[in-house]
């Protein structure tokens, strides 16, 4: 019976992959995702990667009468491949604090932290109202690449900086600066502070407690 379940599962997922490839989609969400996705011309070009991802997200946000939950889910699927969330967690704890966690704590921490990052990114992006974005040329910083971006909203300009590093075949974002404020460092000082007062478990429970607030 178990085996039958497995086979059925494989068939179903395989079927979905094939239909996705054919663009003849049964699942309306997958269809939406495919329709909104902007093709990335050259994955070796980090500027292109960011711009295509941004355009895809904007396409999703522009769909009217779509359930916000579905929208969130789609945005999540689009942005996840370009962020190195696990590395962000490691770096946010830093070289001093990361080794203090044992394997299970690391797993729990990463899961909680990734969900928090995604949630806060989603929240920001969901309030999108025709803001304009201007990507500037990438700047090489040792082995990594930094892409400045200006977000113009209500005549107010926000300077953003995406920091990317090579991860296998593609480039992945490991930190974002908004007006010179690094998301990673802002988390790091909070983690430092919490760990200087309490234990790793305190940190984990605090992460859990403040989730979705």
């Amino acid at each position, binding site marked *: 019976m178990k085996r039958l379940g497995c086979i059925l599962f494989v068939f179903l997922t395989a079927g979905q992959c094939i239909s996705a490839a054919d663009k003849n989609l049964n699942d309306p969400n997958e269809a939406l995702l495919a329709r909104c996705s902007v093709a990335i011309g050259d994955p070796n070009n980090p500027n292109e990667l960011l711009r295509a991802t941004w355009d895809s997200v904007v396409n999703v946000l522009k769909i009217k009468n779509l359930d916000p939950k579905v929208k969130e889910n789609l945005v999540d699927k689009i942005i996840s491949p370009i962020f190195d969330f696990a*590395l962000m967690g*490691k*770096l946010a704890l*830093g*070289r*001093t604090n*990361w*080794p*203090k*966690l*044992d*394997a299970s704590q*690391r797993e729990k921490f990463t899961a909680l932290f990734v969900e*928090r990052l995604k*949630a*806060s990114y989603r*929240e*920001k992006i969901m*309030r999108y109202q025709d803001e304009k974005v201007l990507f500037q040329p990438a700047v090489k*910083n*040792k*082995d*990594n690449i930094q892409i400045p971006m200006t977000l113009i909203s*209500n*005549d*107010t300009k926000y300077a953003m900086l995406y*920091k990317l*590093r090579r991860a296998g075949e593609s480039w992945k974002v*490991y930190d974002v600066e908004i*007006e*010179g*404020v*690094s998301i*990673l*460092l*802002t*988390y*790091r*000082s*909070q*983690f430092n*502070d*919490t760990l200087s007062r309490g234990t790793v478990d305190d940190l984990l429970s*605090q*992460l859990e407690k*403040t989730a979705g*607030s």
Partner: protein
Amino acid sequence: MKLKLYIPIAVWLVAVTGCATAARKNPRSGAVSPADANSPGKANFDVLEFDILEEEFSDQIIIVDPIEPWNRLMYHVNDGLYFWVLKPVSQGYKAVVPEPGRVGIRNFFHNLATPVRLVNCTLQGKFHSVGNEINRCVINTTWGVLGIWDPALDKGKIEPATEDLGQTLAVYGLDNGCYLVWPLLGPSTLRDSAGMVGDYFLNPTFYIEDDEARISISVVNVINKTSFHIGEYEDFKAAAIDPYIAMREAYIQYRQKQIQK
């Protein structure tokens, strides 16, 4: 008027001298404790990769915060003021005053504060910015009708400077001193507070004799400014584990970037 002038000067002097002594105590991070090497879980950990990326974050400034309990209290006071007073008032204001009007008011106040930026650009030897500020002020005050429009930026692409006295003092070698949270004014440091007092004298609104008028004008300025940023603090707070620490860190980083510019 005389007394009014003396109090800020006294505060300023105390703050500057206090700053100078506190400056040397400001430690920087980047040091790694040797105990790490023996910690558990080190083996399955890509040390080299970590090192490369860590280097980038090694210039993080650690701010001293000796009066943290007080600062935390002030943070909560400001948090309450924002949610109970500033936010609802700004939302109401935003609903009534259309965006072009609010942009005009923002431009007007920005243009009025030209002396602050002009003096600080000069003190920092940024003469290109001095020229820009003069051009901007002349163009916007005339063509832009008292600074309500910003043709210098829209048509002339002349970017405004963002210098203030806190940054000038930093350029002159003064460190942050300690972290301070002021009621109403929000996060600051000893040095930036000194700067704020100095800048206050350079802002023409300070020389309005009538107290009521002077206060009303700054209230309008604050509400108008806030109307562009409703929701930002809420997002920031939602993403934080300890919003007080997050705010302190964000403030220090933000100022550091401004100083480097």
